[in-house]
């Protein structure tokens, strides 16, 4: 039995919201893949007082995927939450924080993400494209074609693929593949890469330019490809963990 009983705190109380904001910031700051997540609902909160101005807070959070890639410098508050018909992805997180003298620090966090069921989307929007597997052949072909198309038409640095973030395939009324992927600039120009693209190396962490591309490829009725790539510009790496190392670290996050 704890010496001090747990303090009652509502999920919509300002202290809970402040703790959740700190937790979401931590989660996005420590994620290496996919998109930034925004708070949708505080599911539960428990507070264990530890002493004067010192308490442990347990949060259960419901998050939603935004359109901002995790490498994007756009602040979370400016990121748009993906709509339900975009095939929303939800994140469930358990977070343990300490609040000491009014300052939050995250002690532990555990998150799982999952996409909404295809049946739910179809029920609301029968013709909406659904999320496809990132290793789907049509998805991979579309990403390759899009990146080649961009590199062949853009005189700047030759871009290489970092990761595919999202892919959707629509079969009716037209067969369309829509992809989103993160890219990084290399030490080659597009012209130099024509001879030997394999030799092009990603720029060191402190010089690298990251970017994000969206592309759509119509397969039926007529073949068409549209590509749009935006470079984020200079990124400041985290001193303790080299930025590219974090990007390429394999994880089990779904």
């Amino acid at each position, binding site marked *: 039995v704890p010496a001090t009983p747990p303090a009652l705190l509502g*999920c919509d109380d300002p202290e809970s919201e402040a703790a959740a904001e700190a937790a979401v910031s931590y989660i996005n700051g420590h994620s290496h893949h996919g998109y930034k997540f925004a708070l949708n609902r505080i599911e539960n909160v428990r507070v264990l007082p530890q002493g004067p101005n010192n308490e442990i807070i347990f949060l259960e959070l419901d998050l939603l995927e935004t359109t901002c890639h995790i490498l994007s410098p756009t602040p979370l508050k400016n990121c748009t939450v993906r709509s339900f018909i975009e095939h*929303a992805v939800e994140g469930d997180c358990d977070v343990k924080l300490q609040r000491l003298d009014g300052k939050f620090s995250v002690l532990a966090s555990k998150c799982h993400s999952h996409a909404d069921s295809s049946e739910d989307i179809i029920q609301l929007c029968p013709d909406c494209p659904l999320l496809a597997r990132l290793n789907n052949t049509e998805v991979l072909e579309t990403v390759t074609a899009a990146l080649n198309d961009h590199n062949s038409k853009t005189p700047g640095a030759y871009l290489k693929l970092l990761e595919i973030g999202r892919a959707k395939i629509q079969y009716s009324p037209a067969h369309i593949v829509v992809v989103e992927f993160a890219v990084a600039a290399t030490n080659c120009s597009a012209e130099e890469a024509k001879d030997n693209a394999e030799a092009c190396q990603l720029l060191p962490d402190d010089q690298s330019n990251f970017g994000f591309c969206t592309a759509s490829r119509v397969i039926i009725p007529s073949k068409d490809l549209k590509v749009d790539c935006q470079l984020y510009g200079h990124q400041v790496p985290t001193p303790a963990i080299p930025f590219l190392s974090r990007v390429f670290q394999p994880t089990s996050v779904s």
Partner: protein
Amino acid sequence: PVVKRAVAEVAQRDKVPHPVGFVSPPLLCPGKVRHFKI
């Protein structure tokens, strides 16, 4: 003993039907949905 009595009182109170016009206090959790619920 103090803890036991308090727990018993709460349990007993919950068994008593609410009088007409009684408004339940708002639930502390979960909180409001900011966007939409999956």
